[in-house]
């Protein structure tokens, strides 16, 4: 780790101001950023902790929408997002207890790790990413692995999920970290059917449109059966699974997620 200055503002406005400094970086739960600093892969001059900003915390459900403050931990979401059970379950399966007690939804969505779970939920629910300056539809927000629509110094303040009629997430765990080797989030709601896949693609989280089309008319596992799995060529290939294996899992897990969503 290299040395840095540390700021702990109590309002979003102060945080935005602090992030205006050169090479400043936001710190939320630190579950991604701290290891990166330890390995000297990042060297911010100022770390701006978001943990003292009360406005960034909490889960609330109103009129079919679940809003989660960006600074809310995975453990809190798991415990308090009962209005959207599939999302609460997803949060409860992230990493291990330490990760869940520190890591936050804002940090996860901002980081957009290609194997993270929340991006699949956000894209798979058609969520809205709320920042200090604007609202961004999930479809526009995720732009490839570790890449998002966020501008320099922009802070996510909340994520708003329309609560679908049916939804489920199935994750095939990387055996050590419990990240998604492949994870599939399906939902069926006012906005139609969505199938979001994480862990698999070199382009990060994506919507499997062929499956969405098939499921739009027949929301059953059988509707996916006849589809070819997406091409393995564009998939992540690593020690834990080749692109072809991941592509295969996308289809298997989609079927299982649909079956699970149907209860």
């Amino acid at each position, binding site marked *: 780790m290299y040395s840095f200055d540390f700021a702990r503002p109590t309002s979003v406005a102060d945080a935005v101001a602090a992030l205006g400094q050169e090479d400043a970086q936001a710190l939320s739960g630190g579950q991604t950023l701290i290891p990166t600093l330890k390995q000297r892969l990042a060297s911010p001059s100022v770390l701006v902790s978001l943990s003292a900003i009360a406005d960034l915390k909490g889960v609330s459900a109103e009129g079919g929408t679940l809003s989660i403050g960006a600074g809310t931990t995975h453990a809190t979401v798991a415990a308090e997002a009962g209005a959207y059970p599939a999302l609460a379950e997803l949060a409860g399966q992230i990493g291990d207890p330490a990760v869940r007690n520190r890591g936050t939804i804002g940090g996860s969505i901002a980081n957009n790790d290609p194997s993270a779970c929340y991006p699949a939920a956000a894209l798979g629910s058609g969520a809205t990413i709320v920042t200090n300056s604007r609202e961004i539809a999930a479809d526009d927000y995720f732009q490839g692995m570790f890449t998002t629509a966020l501008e320099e110094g922009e802070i996510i303040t909340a994520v708003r999920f329309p609560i679908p009629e049916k939804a489920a997430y199935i994750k095939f765990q990387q055996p050590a970290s419990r990240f998604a080797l492949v994870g599939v989030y399906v939902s069926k709601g006012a906005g139609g059917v969505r199938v979001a896949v994480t862990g698999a693609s070199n382009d990060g989280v994506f919507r499997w449109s062929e499956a969405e089309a098939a499921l739009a008319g027949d929301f059953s596992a059988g509707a996916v059966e006849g589809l070819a799995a997406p091409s393995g060529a564009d998939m992540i290939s690593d*020690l834990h699974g080749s692109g072809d*294996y991941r592509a295969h899992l996308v289809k*298997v897990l989609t079927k299982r997620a649909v079956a699970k969503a149907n209860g």
Partner: protein
Amino acid sequence: MTIRFDNPDRPNSYIGKTVPRPNARKLVEGRGRYVDDIVLPRMVHVAFVRSPLAHARIEGIDAAAATGVKGVLRVFTGADLAAVCTPWVGVLAHLKGLKSPPQNALAVDRACWVGEAVAAVVATSRAAAEEGAALVEVDYDPLPAVTDTMSALDADTPVIHPGLGDNLAFRRLHEEGDVEAAMASAHKVVSARFRTARHTGVTPEPRSILVDWNPAESQLTAWHATQAPHMMQSVLAEHLDIPESRVRVICGDVGGSYGIKVHVYPDEVATAAIAKVMGRPVKFIADRLESFTTDIHARDHEIEAKIAVAKDGKILAIDVDDWTGIGPYSVYPRTSAIEGNQVVNLCGGPYDFANYRARTTVVFQNKTPTCQYRAVGHPIAVAITEGLVDMAAAAIGMDPVEIRRRNMYADDAYPVTSPAKMRFEGLSHHASMDKLLTLMDYDALRADQAEAMKRGKRRGIGIASFIELTNPSPFMYGIGGARISAQDGCTVRMDPDGSVVALSGVTEQGQGTEAMLSQVVAEGVGVTPEKVRVITGDTQVTPYGGGTWASRGAGIGGEAALQAARALRHSILEVAGAMLQADAGSLDIRDGQVVNADTGAARLPLEELGRIVYFRGDTLPKGLPRELVQTRHFITMDYPFAFTNGVQASYIEVDTDTGVVTLLKHWCVEDCGRVINPQLVDEQIRGGIVQGLGGALYEEIHYDTDGQLLNGSMADYLVPMAAEMPDMVIGHVETPTLESDLGAKGAGEAGTAGAPAAVMNAINDALRPLGAQVTEMPFTPERILRALGTITD
């Protein structure tokens, strides 16, 4: 007087009972003392600059920037240390033809694997040492890397050590009977290609050493996380040119070893050499990446094997061609040829058959050196043997239990000599199998499997019989010229308060050695185990011994402790007889009291006897021996090794959509002779099984073709984790060895030996109806799906 082990109600009956571990509370409360907990005045830290290339000439080392870092005191190169530390060669005379080049504490001129230490930076803090290490500039000239085992001997493969002529470290062919003829006339011949993955031990406590050189006493003291303090004493003395008597190795608490910490590591010897040069205590604690790149690896084998069977299932012949890549050096002093040698010795182990051929080919590569890791060679040999036996059973339509019953040595056949020329004193394959089948309820499990199949679930049962080599004699290392003691000693002393101290040459690595010793000594003397304090791991204090390896602690060290304890008991009773004016033979010691042997009536507490002996010796008869300290040593003589046996079973379910194997349950029945502490033995078996399951399903060190290690972290090197582990049912059959009064053989490696084969057979049992088979470990979900043809390239 012999101990009536058959009577569980005998006085002081601690041998055979679960007694608490004396050191458990200390460790659980965080009061253990590991090497890294020790801080000495003027202590400095060393960090190593390690080769980023698998094979490269070192053209130059520029340490200017490093020495400029605040806190950095000195930078050592290979040449610097070569001046004070002689190189070593990892060969043993009885492994005929084994060759290996001289190896230095720091690479001189050439680095031969990614992670090999090429320079050492010494600083007042670990952080400064690491900072300095990052700034040492090494000018490398890359050389071609040899990474593939099977082509290592090809004519167009570069020779890693030109002075040796080729990349062949060792080759051994063993032939018994006429394999070709047996194969030619057999009812069925089945062949398969097996692969066991290169993996490593992943000790919770990394390798650690702290060395102090005291010039005033000309004495070197090393606090070392090691399994074999006396071996290290000898090695440090020889290579640093210090009389052996002036080297003291202290081994305090150790956070797991599994064989990893029984070898001579260049960076550890370098630490000692630096301490001697600088005259200051020097500490080295490996970090996790260093553990992955420099702890020994193991099990990197590729095998072609065949079995021939008759119509009735009798094994006619086994033919094994084993290849293993061991890295660029044979590890000192135990050598890297032992694992392949063990494969030759152990294949076919449980079975009575006539024609056997096995060859091992041990080649050099530019990867981390491999050497002995828990159950050396056993998991490989058991996978080959048991894999073949199951395939043969399937080929002739016989139940896997039945084919084993027809071939295992009869329980009354002993002593016998196997086709591999291993001598078995007494094993219990059939009794163990019977017990296993009862424990697992084999027929009910088969019914459950069939029932599951109806629900579309693919379940499988796998059985693996095995033998395990324990209690080694000097035939393992000593005859080859290594100063490694197969003998072990124990000194037992009674202090004035009637308590007992036992000093033993075997060591505690977290496995419970001290618990085992305390109960053996307690029973031998006649006190409760709490009255016994055990001291291990200090070459200046304990009797000379081998330490922890090859499952020898209880069988060898335990017997020495028993004999010493009983000698002390005899001495105490001699004094008691004089004090009580009774015949010593009419007295006994029970729960710390001298009693009448026949009635049990209390006569004299040991603390009173202690008070008289130590403070009022004037009241005892002149000339009465009062030696309340006794030492005994034990070495096995009748057999080179005490073989044990056992059988494991695994019940698994394969998810044929994802390829995931779920371990439903696991059983092991094993025969380690006398069970001294049932709970400790059961946990040794369980821990061993977990390591075996790791090899079967998860653990694999990956290298690319340039010799870069690809998964040097706990995020990418998969180890078995609690959530995936099945319930394990452990049972025992006891066939004590007649070589000792205690009758104990080893139990530390049985779990690891059989688990991978049991899982492999279970998976193949589940996949067989689908026409698929796996033989390449670990059985990852993707490998399962490829075997099923679900994924193809």
